[in-house]
């Protein structure tokens, strides 16, 4: 065992070191401004967001992986383009969430909230590049633990506390099942290295069905993180009870992190069992789409509607995973980028409306276009993008996912997907009908949106339009990540 550190090792975890330092800086400023809540409310969100953007910029400059990537830290970490692209996705989501949070009265003064947000992002970063089951499990826990607290952050609000406890209990149980799966993997193969597992499974002379059983156990944990049916029960309650910016973060970054792990583990460690898990994933995809879309039809709260829609979207994205091809992986990453900006925008607008009307019912959106034409248009873009209507981001994403499945001959899955997309469109349009045709409701308090909130929404909207119109840069990002996963 050599005990030397190489510069490559530090480059491979530069973003994580940056996030940790930023979290500590925020906690220190939280203490410095202990007696000045207005200073905290004004600056903490900005500091978080600008700090993350700086880290992203510097890591794009100095810690961009070269070529095929390498394995660092004694086989713990895979330093490749896939990890890099996913890191950028998580950190953008965190930067936007920090800005959106500054519109939320009870969050914007709390330094701990931003610190937890950063540590959770750190965990996601490591989830996306972990090459060892031990690091992977620790990264998943480092991601989840701060999220449990963030979901239950409003300790005086019963719904938020309920959301936190529910999320924690579900998370703990699914983590335990997943860890059991990991321990069986180690017991059966004698290695925890994801990149060695494929050959270890082949050499292990295992009886039929054992590796497949392990996959099922591991999928329980991953299914929870991406809120796919039948591991979705937590999602509606947690999304509606948690502070709205947290719900937005959960539905985008946390889901993306789950998919990053799913792609790497299934396509690398379990490449030999592809025929089984593609069927499993296809079943999960179908169940998620059906349950998500049909239960969304009956919702009256916009946050619950978005929660069920997020389950349905997990289903669409899983179609790309089930394709088990390069195009499939590419479509998953593209979809995650598109879904990130779209859903953050939707939750951001709901956040503002909620603080103004004091309710998260769909009826609170009535006549939004007459109350504020800009907000109405923004919601229109977000909802149509969720529904998969061109020219918005969601259209290309869905197209790619379906194309990947067609390429592999999964026609039935595509038919289910298209049918579900139509059902989904129905309830998105229903919300738009309320926004544009119903008489406006009275706003109790008029909070002017903070500059931070405005900028975050503009960035999201620009993303929705750019990803829809200007295909190339995002496609090549997803392409780079895909080829990094598929060289094995």
């Amino acid at each position, binding site marked *: *065992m*050599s*005990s*030397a*550190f190489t510069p490559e*090792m530090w480059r491979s*975890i530069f973003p994580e070191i940056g996030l*940790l330092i930023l979290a500590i800086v925020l*906690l220190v400023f939280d203490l410095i401004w202990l007696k000045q*809540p207005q200073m905290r409310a004004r600056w903490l969100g900005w500091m978080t967001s600008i700090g993350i953007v700086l880290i992203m910029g510097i890591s794009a400059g100095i810690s961009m992986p070269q070529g095929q990537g390498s394995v660092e*830290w*004694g086989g*713990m*970490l895979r330093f490749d383009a896939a990890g890099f692209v996913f890191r950028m996705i998580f950190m953008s989501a965190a930067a936007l969430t920090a800005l959106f949070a500054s519109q939320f*009265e*009870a969050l914007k*003064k*709390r330094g*701990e*909230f931003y*610190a*937890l947000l950063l*540590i*959770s992002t*750190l*965990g996601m970063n*490591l989830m996306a590049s972990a090459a*060892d089951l*031990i*690091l992977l499990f*620790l*990264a998943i*826990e*480092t991601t989840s*633990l*701060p999220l*449990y*607290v963030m979901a*239950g*952050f*409003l*300790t*005086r*609000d019963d*719904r*938020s506390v309920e959301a*936190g406890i529910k999320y924690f209990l579900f998370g703990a149980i699914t983590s335990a099942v997943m860890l059991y799966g990991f321990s*069986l993997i180690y*017991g*059966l193969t004698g290695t925890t290295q994801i990149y060695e597992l494929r050959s270890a499974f082949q050499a292990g*002379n*295992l*009886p039929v*069905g*054992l590796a497949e*059983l392990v996959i099922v156990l591991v999928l329980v944990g991953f299914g929870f993180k991406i809120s796919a049916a039948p591991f979705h029960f937590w999602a509606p309650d947690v999304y509606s009870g948690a502070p709205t910016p947290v719900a937005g973060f959960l539905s985008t970054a946390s889901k993306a992190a789950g998919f990053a792990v799913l792609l790497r583990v299934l396509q690398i460690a379990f490449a030999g069992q592809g025929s089984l898990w593609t069927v499993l994933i296809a079943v999960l995809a179908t169940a998620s789409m059906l349950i998500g879309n049909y239960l969304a039809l009956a919702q009256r709260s916009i946050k619950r509607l978005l929660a069920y829609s997020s389950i349905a979207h997990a289903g669409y994205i899983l179609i790309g995973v089930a394709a088990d091809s390069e195009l499939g992986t590419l479509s998953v990453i593209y979809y995650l980028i598109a879904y990130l900006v779209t859903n953050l925008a939707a939750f951001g607008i709901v956040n503002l409306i909620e603080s103004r009307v004091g309710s998260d019912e769909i009826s609170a959106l009535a006549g939004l276009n007459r109350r504020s034409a800009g907000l109405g248009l923004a919601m229109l873009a977000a909802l149509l993008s969720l529904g998969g209507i061109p020219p918005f981001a969601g259209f290309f994403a869905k197209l790619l996912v379906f194309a990947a499945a067609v390429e592999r001959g999964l026609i039935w899955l595509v038919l289910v997907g298209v049918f579900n997309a139509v059902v989904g469109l129905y309830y998105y349009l229903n919300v738009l009908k309320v926004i544009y045709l119903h008489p406006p409701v009275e706003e109790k308090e008029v909070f002017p949106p903070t500059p931070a909130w405005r900028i975050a929404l503009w960035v999201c909207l620009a993303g929705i339009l750019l990803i829809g119109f200007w295909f190339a840069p995002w496609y090549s990002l997803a392409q780079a990540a895909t080829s990094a996963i598929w060289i094995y």
Partner: protein
Amino acid sequence: MNGLQVVFLLAALVSLFSAAMVVSARRMMHAALWLVLTLMGVAVIFVTLQSSFFAVVQVLVYVGAIAILIIFSVMLTRRVMEDHGDQILPGWRAAGLVAGLLFAIIVGFLALWQGFTTMLVELPADADNLLDLGQALVSPQGYALPFELASVLLVAALIGAITIAVDRKEDQHG
């Protein structure tokens, strides 16, 4: 059946039984005490596997520190933590059946594996687990990164616990 196997079976039975008692005991205090016994059982299993260091750590950290902390917190919050109503879910039989069935399936599959019948391999007397463990934890080519991540995780847990437990007087409305 040799002596080691008997010890293992006894320890396993005791830990399983007391683990079941932890979740089914009606009073929090009793559950906490059963938890101590469960953790002791796990320590004995570590001993049968010749990992004396883990056995000691299990007793010192889990029994000595964590379980005692739990007992203290149960004692301090007795009034709040008194249970009301039924602690058993109405559908517990179905849940138990499904869990038992799944367990049987897993064990059934495992029994087909050649490693299932492997006997315990005794470690050579001069094997120094502790030295290897210590070096692996701090070596950059070993487990240094997960080790550091675990400390970040613990810091996050501390911050989170304080956030939940301390009620700041500042305006906190939903």
